[in-house]
């Protein structure tokens, strides 16, 4: 397939359209303004709907509504905007509504900075809103991966009747890279996907009080609320099989970098530099950050590995907490960090690995 040169934000939007997304509502925020801009132009071409909401809160609730109708729906934003959407995301999770959203994360906390960061890790993986719900969270490290993950995210969302998050950052969003775009779902396929949601979605039912669609982000009875939460918990536990990691030159490694997203690709290039210099470095990159690929850390040869180096664009470090759970104190964990909109430096990663090697 021919490769095309696309900006991350636009490539994600195109991937969503090709996956059958026919409703997008969003609100502008740097560095993801091209997502709504692209959908505004593209949706009319495929008989889809684009809405620029009056706010983030309005946009996520429009997605909640459209997805309740069985339509593949999406929103996107960047860090502070995602915080504003968190109420609606929690409602979607409570009502078990499949939808996809993307966070092109920037520096924080607060309004922070508009430059790229990875400071929304806990928010993305542990508490994207009230109530302790969880979502599958994918962390792309290239524009191609952002495309592939977005395309598949709608399938996971439909499979689980649950929101799915693409946790990207300002670099993935604003950079351009060659991509191969996935196949466009046909109108027939899209109609079939919607029809398959007929058992629960508001797709137009006969007048039948007992079997009507009833979308509710909560339960009147505490007993039922507990049941719903137990069902959700069973779903979250079933994701262990879906955890994905890239393990690169781990076998004989004396230092293993643990990272994800944009930091991980920079770390991977550092591994290549180190290997060329004869330093036995390796990389474990979390592809899904929820479910977290803890098992990848069980495959490390701890007799050889002197230390794990956590590389992330967040101060204080967040991803490292999941790395600790995976490593289970089998070797020391060091960190190489930056924050606030600064992009991870390969030189900094090289220096951190060398420091470990020198003991």
């Amino acid at each position: 397939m021919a490769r095309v040169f696309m900006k991350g934000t636009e490539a994600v939007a195109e991937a969503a359209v090709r996956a059958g997304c026919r409703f997008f509502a969003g609100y502008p925020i740097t560095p993801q303004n091209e997502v709504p801009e692209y959908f505004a132009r593209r949706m009319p071409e495929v008989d889809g709907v684009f809405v620029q909401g009056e706010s983030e809160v309005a946009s996520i609730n429009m997605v909640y509504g459209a997805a309740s109708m069985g339509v593949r729906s999406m929103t996107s934003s960047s860090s502070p905007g995602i915080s504003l959407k968190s109420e609606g995301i929690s409602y979607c999770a409570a009502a078990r509504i499949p939808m996809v959203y993307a966070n092109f994360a920037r520096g924080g906390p607060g309004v922070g900075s508009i430059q790229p960061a990875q400071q929304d890790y806990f928010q993305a993986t542990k508490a994207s809103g009230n109530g302790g719900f969880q979502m599958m969270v994918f962390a792309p490290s290239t524009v191609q991966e952002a495309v592939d993950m977005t395309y598949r995210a709608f399938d996971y969302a439909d499979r689980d009747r649950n929101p799915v998050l693409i946790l990207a950052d300002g670099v993935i969003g604003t950079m351009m890279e060659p991509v191969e775009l996935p196949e466009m779902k046909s109108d027939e396929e899209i109609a079939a996907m919607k029809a398959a949601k007929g058992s629960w979605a508001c797709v137009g039912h006969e007048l039948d009080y007992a079997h009507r669609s009833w979308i509710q982000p909560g339960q009147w009875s505490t007993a039922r609320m507990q049941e719903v939460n137990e069902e959700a918990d069973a779903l979250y536990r079933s994701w262990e099989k879906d955890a994905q990691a890239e393990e690169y030159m781990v076998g004989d490694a004396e230092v293993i970098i643990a990272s994800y997203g944009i930091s991980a690709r920079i770390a991977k290039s550092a591994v290549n530099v180190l290997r060329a210099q004869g330093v036995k470095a390796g990389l474990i990159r979390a592809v899904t950050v929820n479910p977290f690929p803890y098992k990848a850390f069980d495959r490390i040869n701890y007799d050889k590995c002197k230390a794990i180096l956590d590389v992330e664009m967040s101060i204080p470090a967040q991803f490292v907490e999941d790395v600790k759970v995976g490593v289970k104190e089998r070797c020391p964990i060091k960190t190489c960090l930056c924050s606030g909109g600064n992009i991870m430096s390969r030189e900094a990663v090289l220096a951190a690995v060398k420091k470990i090697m020198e003991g």
Partner: protein
Amino acid sequence: METNLCVAGFGGQGVMTMGKFLADATCNSTDKKVTFFPSYGAEQRGGTANCFVVISDDDIGAPLGDVMDDLVVMNGPSLAKFLPTLKEGGTLFINSSIVSDDIARKDVKVVKAPVTELALEMGSAKVLNVIMLGVYVGYTEVIDPAVVWETIEHKLSSKPKLLPLNKQAFEKGLELGKSQR
């Protein structure tokens, strides 16, 4: 083999477009990996603007490297800001119509091109970036000039009136770049 390029100048000089033309042409014509990464923020005409292009045979790590192999400087402030990032033995391409400062570093190659004056002589200051792109491609031969021109032609296909001037600009740049090899 990996080349890290930074293009920097005033907003309005077309530095983003120059980087995009080069990166897009690389994507279209080769199997090489390529990234284009713009500085972003409160960019405006007359403010500073810069972008980074990485062209590589292998997977690219940071789209914004720590050290630049090549640096294109369109104005004075960009020289001061980015010259320290140029590697030893790297190549500095200067818009010598505007940047008249002495180059403090003696460990880099300098390619001077008066692109603002040349563009004005051709009748439009706007083509200075295309002249500089010609200079860069002519000097470095990083990719085939023919495919760069095809990309420009494609990008400007909705404005065919602009093609002759841009072709003249690109060819002038190429000639200038090659002559300084």
